């Protein structure tokens, strides 16, 4: 965050770059499909860089051949949650990997209020620091 320009959350791949265009997203999906990975679309409005558990938008998509199907889901998700964070993940089922191998944000809220620094006093004069998203002060679903 501190190294990132503005209040943009950085998580996953490409998040320090300008937003990916649809053509670039399609190209990334094509790469994942060529590796035989299963793609999924996820969304959240709880923007902490360490929040890795996002909500699934539909089931992960196995056995697809063409990016068009995944782009369709991405666009559906954008239509349903225009002001949420949306990411595309690619899951590799190769033995020994068996985890998400790609993950990048494909949609952001129009306004990202950013993070504040929270100080906590503990034993002695020790200070603990953490960050807190201004957006998450509001209840879920009303944040953006």
């Amino acid at each position, binding site marked *: 965050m501190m190294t990132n320009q503005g209040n943009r959350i950085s998580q996953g791949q490409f998040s320090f770059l300008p937003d990916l*265009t*649809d053509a670039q997203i399609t190209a990334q999906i094509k790469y994942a499909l060529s590796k035989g990975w299963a793609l999924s679309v996820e969304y959240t409005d709880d923007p902490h860089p360490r929040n890795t558990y996002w909500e699934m938008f539909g089931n992960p998509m196995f056995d697809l*051949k063409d990016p068009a199907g*995944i782009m369709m889901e991405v666009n559906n998700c954008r239509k349903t949650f225009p002001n949420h964070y949306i990411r595309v993940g690619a899951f590799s089922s190769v033995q020994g990997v068996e985890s998400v191998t790609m993950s990048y944000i494909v949609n952001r809220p129009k306004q990202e209020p950013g993070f504040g620094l929270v100080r906590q006093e503990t034993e002695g004069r020790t200070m603990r620091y953490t960050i807190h998203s201004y957006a998450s002060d509001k209840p879920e679903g009303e944040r953006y």
Partner: protein
Amino acid sequence: MNNTDESNNKPDMVVLADDAPVNLEAEFEASNVKEVLDKLDRELIGLKPVKTRIREIAALLLVDRLRKQFALTSETPTLHMNFTGNPGTGKTTVAMRMAEILHRLGYVREGHLVSVTRDDLVGQYIGHTAPKTKEVIKKAMGGVLFIDEAYYLYKPENERDYGAESIEILLQVMENNRDDLVVILAGYKDRMDKFFHSNPGMRSRIAHHIDFPDYSANELLAIANLMLADQNYHFSPDAEKAFLEYITLRMKMEHFANARSVRNALDRARLRQANRLFASASKLLNKVDLMTIEAEDILASRVFQEGKLDSEPAGVKRP
């Protein structure tokens, strides 16, 4: 954010001058379509109307490609198809080829065929159908979605049937994602007509209605020869004559399923050939013996002896 600017999506196209010559022949050669069409001619016997239509589609797509070089844009043609015909007339086989042809012509991106029936599209409880249908559609994107026995999708006698929901989703995708997938429906003629009658939206969204004619006896013989060659068998000259006779008799009987019946008859002939070879175990066999189907392997069929189907148990009298 959601960049919808298409210009950086496509490679730069050089627009040719108005009087620049283009070579249709060269384009035809480059697309490898000739190879596929020749293969189609060679491996699919008969089916005149089908081949003509495939040629027309290939020509249209090639001409479209040339027109693009002059920046003459036209809407992408709708290529959803409907194959009707009696059992065993090659609907599925042609659908498989179609995927390859469309891929060569650059109309579909991947060229795979996803073959489904009602079971794969329609769910068992409320809310199950839409995700199921969508999943199949997503799998078929970039290729061809082949729905066999499509009339089962719609069951008018049960108003709580979920098939209608599936049809609705299909219609939507057929209209909106024309660039992404080609839908081919297949089924028997009368039932498909009934299906379209109750789903007029489906009929109008399908541009090509292709009827598969029944084969003649000689065409079926040619098919049999091809099938045998594929499995490294061949007829002896006598056997060929006998088989033609067999086909002529069999065509008049009930449950005749064109090429499928031929395949079954050949499978049984192979059984009898093996049995015959076994009976003459004392003799040393050579390669030709193992490959040849003799007349007696065919003539042993019950179609000749009692005028009955082989699949029926012996001694059962038919009404």
